[in-house]
């Protein structure tokens, strides 16, 4: 039987962890967050709360949004104590 000949008996649903498993989920966005670095105080609240791990933070450096994966949920803008993040509509 063709199916049996083709397959390895050890084929199994084992998956590897990767970045971007569901692709670049930034494509989901309707609004994108933009950080005004003049207002940013590097409190890292945005980094703390991002559900998509789409904000990169290094200590003492400004947080950076990874637009490949940011879904535009707006939590970062909502939690920022200095309102340093605004949500801007994506262009077509």
């Amino acid at each position, binding site marked *: 039987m063709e199916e049996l000949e083709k397959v390895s008996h050890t084929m199994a649903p084992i*998956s590897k962890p*990767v970045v971007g*498993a569901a692709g670049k989920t930034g494509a989901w966005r309707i609004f994108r967050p933009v950080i005004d670095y003049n207002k940013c105080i590097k409190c890292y609240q945005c980094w703390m709360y991002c*559900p998509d791990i789409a904000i990169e933070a290094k200590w003492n450096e400004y947080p950076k949004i990874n637009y490949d994966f940011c879904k535009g949920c707006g*939590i970062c803008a*909502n939690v920022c104590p200095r309102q340093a993040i605004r949500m801007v509509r994506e262009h077509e």
Partner: protein
Amino acid sequence: MSLKEVIEKPELLLPGHSACPGCGAVISLRWTLKALGKRTILVIPACCTSVYQYIWPTSAIGVFVYNVAFASAAAVASGISNALEIKGRKDYNVVVWGGDGGILDIGFATVSGAAERGENIIVICYDNEAYMNTGIQRSSGTPGGAWTTTTPLGKTEQKKAAPFIFLLHNAVYVATASPAYPLDLYNKVKKAKKLRGFKYIHILSPCPPGWRYPENLTIKLGKLSVETGYWALWEAERINGKMKFTLSPPSRPYLDPSKRKPIEEYIKHQRRFRDKEIAKKLIQEWINYQWSLIKRFMSESSEG
């Protein structure tokens, strides 16, 4: 543990998962994994996490994940935990990560059994207050007054007081948490990890599509859940055979009902509460009940 140290910790939940924008569960998982570290085996029953880890042959979760049948997680975890001990392995975590469905309803007997036997596992329930994975059906975690697809007129029964139930089991550590207080969650997971025996952590996990609110308000609602007294953050640790019950700092002010924010603040953003008057009444009953339990456990608490 400082913010600086935590920032340097590796991200074990990887970007590119397919959770809904603004999902409270992934914020919770992200911080849970930061605390657990790489030598972790997550046992995941059917739930949202089964889906947003995404599709074979890739996964968005960077630790061991064993996806299992709905009701079975705590029992599979018991088998894994005992087997690793048989093999003489050290320094690993066996953690059940499931929703209110898999932990409180269909899997309840299984979790209770593992708790009663004192299995050396951590069971974490991320409670988004309905069977969200299958499209928002009512669970025992759904609060009274909430719309779900199976309670279109609003649930009439109260939310199951789940975390307290495990205080009456053979647990060494029971705690509640919220993604809106990630460092508190992080510390609790870290503490649980160090203890031997059955540990239970219950996270109230806001859900934009299920609770019907704009997705940017997840953290705001998480904070309001604590500030209104709806969700109390506490932990209980077994020391010398007695439970030491401690209210966590974010919740301490709300032991005093006059300090609690009005329930309207919390429910006004959530369109799942259609009849606001009924919802307010039922939620007030829940809040009263929860805090009466807390006061009781606090008064019986022992330093050990």
